[in-house]
């Protein structure tokens, strides 16, 4: 039953049988007046109508359960993807300061680029004057010779091994901050997907 319902849900989500298949599962209160006898939602009706109603309810519930995204239950926040994007672009100043300061501390001992580059950590356009502009650099670390020496079979592999592996200086605190923002974005997108799915079912 679950597989079958899922298959039907699959089709509905594709919109292939959007009109025809789905009408089969609309509640009886929305049904047209073609029923032989006028019935309340749960009043006594003919046996055939009764059976159809039960089947409709079971199928509707099975569709609802089967087509739930396999995601954990979350307290979905009300912010939408677009609002999240705005939030990312206009983070409060203390957070930006904290992020920028923590990030730059890790670069103090690294090789500095003589031409300082503005950071666009949290904005797409030019950063406001009040926001923190920090140089964002990678530190290229030479890995110990024992780690870099590998037997090579081809010239391409040799070329790759000559390139120094790249690393990034970042604190765990900053890593957690960006991870939490990524999770918020993920939750917002899942909520958006769920809303679209319910809109499809509601048609």
């Amino acid at each position, binding site marked *: 039953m679950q597989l079958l319902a899922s298959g039907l849900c699959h089709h509905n989500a594709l919109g292939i049988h959007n009109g025809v298949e789905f009408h089969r599962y609309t509640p009886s209160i929305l049904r047209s007046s073609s029923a032989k006898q006028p019935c309340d939602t749960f009043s006594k009706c003919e046996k055939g109508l009764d059976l159809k109603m039960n089947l409709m309810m079971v199928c509707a519930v099975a569709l609802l359960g089967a087509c739930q995204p396999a995601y*954990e239950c979350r307290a979905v926040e009300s912010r939408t993807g677009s609002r999240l994007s705005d939030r990312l672009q206009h983070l409060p100043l203390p957070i930006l300061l904290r992020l920028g300061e923590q990030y730059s501390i890790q670069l103090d001992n690294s090789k500095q680029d003589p031409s300082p580059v503005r950071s*666009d950590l949290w904005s797409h356009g030019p950063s406001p004057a009040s926001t923190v502009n920090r140089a964002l650099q990678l530190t290229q670390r030479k890995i110990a010779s024992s780690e870099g020496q590998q037997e090579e079979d081809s010239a391409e592999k040799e070329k790759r091994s000559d390139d120094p592996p790249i690393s*990034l200086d970042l604190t765990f605190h900053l890593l957690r901050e960006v991870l939490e923002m990524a999770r918020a974005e993920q939750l917002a997108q899942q909520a958006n997907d769920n809303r679209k799915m319910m809109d499809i079912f509601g048609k």
Partner: protein
Amino acid sequence: MERAFRERLLFALLCLSVPRRDCRYIEDNEVTQDELFSVLNSDLKRELPDASMYRRPLRCLDMVALEGQFTFTAARPQRGCASFFIAEPNKVFSLFYDHVNINCRGGDFIKVFDGWVMKGQRFPSLQDHPLPLHQRYVDYCNSDELSRRTGVRSSQNVFMLFFHIRNAGDGFTITVRQHLNPFPCNIISQTPEGRFTMVVPQQHRNCSFSIIYPVQLQISAFSLGRSSDPALPKMSVTGCSDAGDFVELLGGSGLDTSHMSPIAELCSSFTGPTQMKIGCDNTVLRLVSSGRFVNSLTFSYNLLDQHDLNSVDGFCFTE
């Protein structure tokens, strides 16, 4: 059917159909059920129109937990950009280049790293990753046309993208997909709370589960093969160094498990909770497997509260 009974039946069916998870951050890695939904979801993703794919610009420093299409366009010379990608523990990534406009000869590059690297420390470590280090960095500029079209696939639920673009207006567009990994090995947790079961099916490999938060850890079950197997290792009072299959609990302030301090070891099957509080920046459970047994480790974790953190004397501690 009576109206009241029908109402109760419908209510009961609706209650059964709501999501089964209990808490916001509990990670349920019931692979069997996820397998079912992931197959359906992957079919949906292949057939859904492009309009439904998630799209957004990629930032110079970014963290992405979604699949979709991401575009980076340099508004000015961008040196040293990095994007972290992280999925749920039972997923891996595949990356495809949709459009690339960079000047490789001028020094621009796009490199994919299979794992995460931070302050010179890599996850998974050299001992735990199936590939040698030089194969974990895939350089777009040094790849042939076939490799660029085929894309890159990660070995675990995390990977990184490094890029350096000198000319304003240059950039690239990538599509990132997630795929089910039935036997996840080497995982970084997305959340400070969760529950996970790591299974290593008779493979000679080491698998780590990394939690980049100070946590209270509860190991509820650890099994080595079948309990009736007479060859199962016994509890050793001298530690687990002689055992081919064991679990080690590590704590540290970096990503590399080979640079972390062992806190505890388990080399005998048991059931029943064992609880520990670990105040390190990174807590890792590492399952070392000889390949002789099917090893399974079940545990849960939650963030240490402020009271526990305040009692830390500025360093990792265990209780």
